[in-house]
């Protein structure tokens, strides 16, 4: 009983300390700056960006692709690890679900930032045409938002009940709110059966929907004639890339959360070792698809394809391309081959490198292709032959990243980042009856 109380005390959400408040203020300042820049963009039109008729998509789109990719972590960590019954996932899933919700919500917002006429957003529904990949996105993104919210919410029910009890005297208002959110959870066998079944259904759903989300994201590009996008390899290439970005992000957030919430007892070196292995696997799969995408075309080397590859391998974007490939992908794989490389601290840095690499990787996918169309670029200002984001674009993009971090921070503040009830059950110190193993 005491062990249980200690556990609850360890895992309940705690008040912000001074440092956390400063962090929040920092994020909010960036977001406000981004909002101001965005309002200016709406007023003046997208001429405030450095996009042009050739580089017609810029970092708004690559940032969108990055968010979509990161949101895949929910599908991976929750569905794959759950369906393969990997028990080490327990202290990690909640954070994965939180990242998923934040990333997919931000993906929905960033794609609207790229729209030059956000005032005509409703046209997407009123005049929707099914054969456009954008319409597929309009369908799949809200679907994924709903599913990932449910996947976060259903497992939280017993924890909300625990929080209601815990805060009863300390913070009656919070307790009441948690109580409402817990939907009168008592832990009865009937409730547990429904909850288990619901979670199972959602976990089964998030896998195909997550795969579809990444696929449609890839199809946005591969349904065009553009060299470098017109590739049948693109969907699996994006899916594997999403695993890398997602797991990388998960490792970073978990490291920080563990440190600031002092959860070393629950998230141990063992967990980091496992996550390191998973990330190494994801990186290797991604490398495989990179080889398919960039090495094999070298052999047939059709003229347009050769132009594209030259631009990446030796041309204007070669530095970025090689940094992203070698430091962002190959180096992490090598480091993670060693057990020492999978210790928390080195793994955190690897995760950070992988996430930053993933962001720039999307830039390398989106921009160079646009800069060598079938016809030569003539009759337009010379600056149109290159693209680098403008001040407005940077501020707005950075503020979307800050918004994602803010969402994550808020959820970490008010939700137990490690499932309390589940951990108690696994440790055998639960107050409630253990879940009856019902075959579904």
């Amino acid at each position, binding site marked *: 009983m005491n062990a249980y109380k200690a556990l609850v005390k360890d895992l309940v959400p705690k008040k912000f300390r001074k440092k956390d408040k400063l962090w929040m203020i920092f994020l909010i300042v960036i977001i406000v700056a981004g909002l101001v820049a965005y309002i200016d963009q709406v007023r*003046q*039109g*997208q*001429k405030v*960006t450095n*996009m*042009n*008729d*050739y580089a*017609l*998509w810029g970092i708004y789109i690559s940032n969108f692709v990055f968010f979509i990719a990161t949101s895949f972590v929910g599908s991976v960590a929750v569905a794959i690890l759950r369906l393969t019954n990997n028990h080490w996932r327990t202290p990690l899933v909640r954070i994965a679900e939180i990242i998923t919700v934040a990333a997919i919500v931000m993906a929905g917002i960033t794609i609207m930032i*790229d*729209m*030059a*006429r956000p005032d*005509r*957003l409703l*046209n*997407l529904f*009123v*005049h*929707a*045409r099914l*054969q*456009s*990949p*954008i*319409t597929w996105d*309009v369908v799949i993104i809200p679907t994924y938002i709903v599913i990932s919210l449910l996947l976060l919410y259903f497992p939280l029910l017993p924890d909300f009940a625990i929080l209601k009890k815990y805060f009863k005297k300390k913070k009656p208002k919070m307790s009441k709110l948690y109580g409402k959110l817990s939907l009168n959870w008592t832990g009865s066998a009937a409730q547990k059966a429904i909850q288990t079944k619901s979670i199972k259904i959602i976990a089964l759903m998030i896998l195909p929907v997550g795969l579809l989300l990444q696929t449609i994201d890839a199809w*946005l590009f591969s*349904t*065009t*004639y*553009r060299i470098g996008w017109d590739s049948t390899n693109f969907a699996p290439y994006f899916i594997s890339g999403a695993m890398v970005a997602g797991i990388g992000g998960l490792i970073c957030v978990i490291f920080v959360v563990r440190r600031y919430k002092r959860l070393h007892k629950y998230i141990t070196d063992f967990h980091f070792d496992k996550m390191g292995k998973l990330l190494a696997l994801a990186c290797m799969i991604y490398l495989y698809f990179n080889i398919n995408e960039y090495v094999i075309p070298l052999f047939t080397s059709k003229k347009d394809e050769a132009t594209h590859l030259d631009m990446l391998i030796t041309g204007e974007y070669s530095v970025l391309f090689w940094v992203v490939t070698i430091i962002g992908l190959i180096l992490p794989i090598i480091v993670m081959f060693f057990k020492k490389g999978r210790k928390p601290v080195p793994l955190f840095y690897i995760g950070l490198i992988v996430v930053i690499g993933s962001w720039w990787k999307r830039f390398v996918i989106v921009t160079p292709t*646009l800069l060598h*169309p*079938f*016809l*030569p*670029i*003539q*009759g*337009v*200002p*010379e600056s*149109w032959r290159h693209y680098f984001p403008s001040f407005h674009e940077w501020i707005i993009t950075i503020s979307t990243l800050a918004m994602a971090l803010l969402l994550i921070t808020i959820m970490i503040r008010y939700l137990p980042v490690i499932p309390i009830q589940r951990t108690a059950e696994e440790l055998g110190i639960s107050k409630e009856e253990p879940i009856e193993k019902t075959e579904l």
Partner: protein
Amino acid sequence: MKSNSKERRKFLDKGLKIGLATLIGSFGLSKLSSKLIAKTTTSSNDKMELMTTDGKLIQVDSSEVMTVEKHHDHDSAYNVREGMPNRKFVMVVDLAKCKNALNCQNACNKYHYVTGDNAWLKVYDMQESKDTAHYWMPMMCQHCDKPACVTVCPVDATFKRRDGLVLIDNERCIGCRFCMAACPYSTRVFNWGDPGQEVTLNMDLIGHSPSPEHAGKPSVVGTVDKCDFCPHQVQQGELPHCVTACPNGVFYFGDKYEDTVTNGEETLRLSQLLEDKAGYRFLEGLGTEPSVYYLPPTDRLVDFEDGLQYYKEFESVEKPE
């Protein structure tokens, strides 16, 4: 309690299914019966004599005869999204005659009030490979029969008409620029900021409401523009501006169904012209089925170099000082 609610659910489930089945069944039955009834209507023995379209006289039971309300506007009613009935507009560009005089571009810019940095019609300095000759190639919207831009548009803002034109509804476009990414001919331009047309050219623009027929008049911020084959000219029996402006008769415009094209001076059989001069379409291999044909730059009237004096690598729209 538990079993009770289960029973209820079962009942509801079954009820729904039975209800649905009944609905479908009764609908089918009513369809069937209406057909049967129609067959058994008795004829009135009152015959009428009518003439068919090929001139034969026939007798028809008068009960079968109905007056058809004539739609006066059936042929004349003009739908912007449908286009002009029974027409199929094409263009032929004779590369052998082009010397980059750029009158086409200037006329296009002027009459479409192009104010951005990228013209709708551009003349490219082309060279297939290192050892082959340079030549001038006017490039405008190809008005593809399988337009990649129309396929990807999420809101049907850019659309294909029966008369072959691909146009843009600037009042519906959401500015996602997917069509620009999809177009392999790089002919679409975007209004990144306020077009500012009323400042530079305010003559005819006042009171002119935007219509896909008059693309670019006025342009709308945050939407896509491109060559529209000048339907406003064609409707008045005129040729597109680029065709009439060209001093060398490079552009031929016409109707594929009539098999004729004209550059204002001479009118030719389209099929004959394409056969005689080995016409081709640009990037045929992509399967976009363009409506613009090119005649190869053989036996050129002028040297390529003569056109270089007008060539501006970094400008296609002249800006007022």
